[in-house]
């Protein structure tokens, strides 16, 4: 049974991190980082060519992580694979004991780095979840044909963008994801209590019952925050945080110390995580360190979180 599932079902504060496979075939950095994350997080999402930029496959790194003793979450987008290819990957994953998955629609190839690639979108996030639920319920594949030895039991999740206008449209899609079988939700990066709570209130009002893990992105600099505000859909870093990062950069310059903004970013992330736990706002957090996964254990320690 999925560790994440066990944590969420027993009401413990769940923690997941996120890692991208390499752009290449040398997985040594990812494997080294996995050693640092072991015992600190319940599971690690492995992205499926995030931002439509070519990487080694999610399944590949999931297998490496599983063999290193971590629980990977297989992220699956509908961008590059038909329903057959998705199901085939899920079955292969299950044979390695990888049973925790997260379904996403996926960024379009034209926003990525291999623009000529054909967009597939046979299924969207809801369609993927439904296909997997149907498989579990019937023991049959996407064509209704029986699987030898039956279907694997999966713990399926989905994502949601909490800062979205019009919000009812996201809430409605969230409902469809839950109805299609999502049993946990990780949010896109959210930075302030107010935005998070506004979203959670809407979820409550809609009567949607599912554990929600707040997405946390530790900021590295004011520039990164501004870039994300401009370019990443659903990201809204408050101006006040950006000003603090700017001030940290100025202070570092004056004192001749490097890395102050990143340190502040980690502190702000840790404060927010501690607050989410203390006020019981969410069932857990999902930390997206974007290439700085080695910082995740430090942030968790600062937040006073251990499994």
């Amino acid at each position, binding site marked *: 049974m999925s560790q994440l599932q066990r944590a969420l079902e027993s009401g413990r504060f769940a923690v997941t991190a996120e890692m991208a496979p390499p752009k290449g075939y040398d997985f040594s950095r990812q494997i080294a980082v996995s050693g640092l994350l072991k015992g600190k997080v319940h599971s690690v999402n492995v992205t499926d060519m995030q931002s439509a930029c070519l990487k080694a496959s999610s399944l590949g790194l999931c297998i490496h992580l599983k063999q290193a003793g971590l629980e990977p979450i297989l992220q699956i987008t*509908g961008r590059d694979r038909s*329903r057959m290819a998705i199901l085939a990957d899920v079955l292969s994953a299950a044979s390695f004991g990888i049973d925790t998955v997260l379904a996403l*629609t*996926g*960024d*379009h190839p*034209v*926003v990525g780095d291999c623009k000529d690639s054909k*967009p597939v*979108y*046979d*299924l*969207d*996030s*809801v*369609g993927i979840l*439904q*296909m997997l639920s149907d498989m579990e319920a019937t023991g049959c594949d996407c064509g209704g044909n029986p699987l030898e030895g039956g279907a694997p039991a999966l713990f399926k999740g989905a*994502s*949601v*963008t909490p800062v*979205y206008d*019009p919000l*009812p*449209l*996201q809430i*409605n*899609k969230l*409902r*469809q994801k839950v109805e*299609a079988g999502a049993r946990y939700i990780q949010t*896109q990066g959210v930075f302030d209590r107010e935005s998070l709570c506004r979203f959670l209130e809407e979820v409550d009002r809609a009567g949607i019952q599912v554990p929600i893990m707040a997405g946390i992105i530790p900021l590295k600099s004011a520039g990164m925050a501004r870039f994300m505000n401009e370019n990443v*859909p*659903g990201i809204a870093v408050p101006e006040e945080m950006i000003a603090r990062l700017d001030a940290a950069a100025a202070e570092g310059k004056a004192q001749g110390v490097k890395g102050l903004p990143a340190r502040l970013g980690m502190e702000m992330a840790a404060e927010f995580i501690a607050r989410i736990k203390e006020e019981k706002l969410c069932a857990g957090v999902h930390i997206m360190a974007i290439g700085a996964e080695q910082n995740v254990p430090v942030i968790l320690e600062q937040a006073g979180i251990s499994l």
Partner: protein
Amino acid sequence: MIITQKKPAEELLAMLAGVRKVALVGCGNCAAACQTGGEKELEEMKQFLEEQGFEVVGSILPDECCHKLLVKRDLRALKDCGAEAVVGLSCGDGVQTVADNLQLPVYPANNTMFLGQVERVGIFHEYCRMCGDCVLGETGGICPITKCAKSLVNGPCGGQKNGKCEVCPDNDCAWILIYNRLQAIGQADKLGRTRKTKGYAGAYYPKHLNLREGKKA
């Protein structure tokens, strides 16, 4: 309407390498409206090819170029013109319909772009991708297959920014349009009831439709 666009002249000239005598076939319907195959464009093409040293030995303008019997009838006018090749100023369907009726190479002068709405003269927008399983009844009459860059049937991805699509910021996010429209026509409750998946078992091509089947010939 089938929306077409002229190919670059060099591309057409490359196809015509080695040819001297050319006949032209336009289309009085869609291509005429798209300014790619009407009377004026046939005249311009004739002039252009003659400047390039070709002999234009015939030119016809069928009412519509995708109608086999009609094209067959009109092509009789080119029977003895001595053309070595034909240039089709129509959509891809029209070019092939001409070729079905002739033992000559037929070259396309146009690229066939999409099935579109004519907003006004010279302005066209794609509205339907002819998916063969229309969902407009569930989406307030706005097509998510065509207007959403990912053809999503269960609501939006997270990618819109200020109501614009992540794929091309010139386009409105289809699902925001659908949401607003459903509100406006009092069908907000339909939002959660779109399809979980859309099947593609019927999406193989080429497709055929025969309304005469089962009837007396």
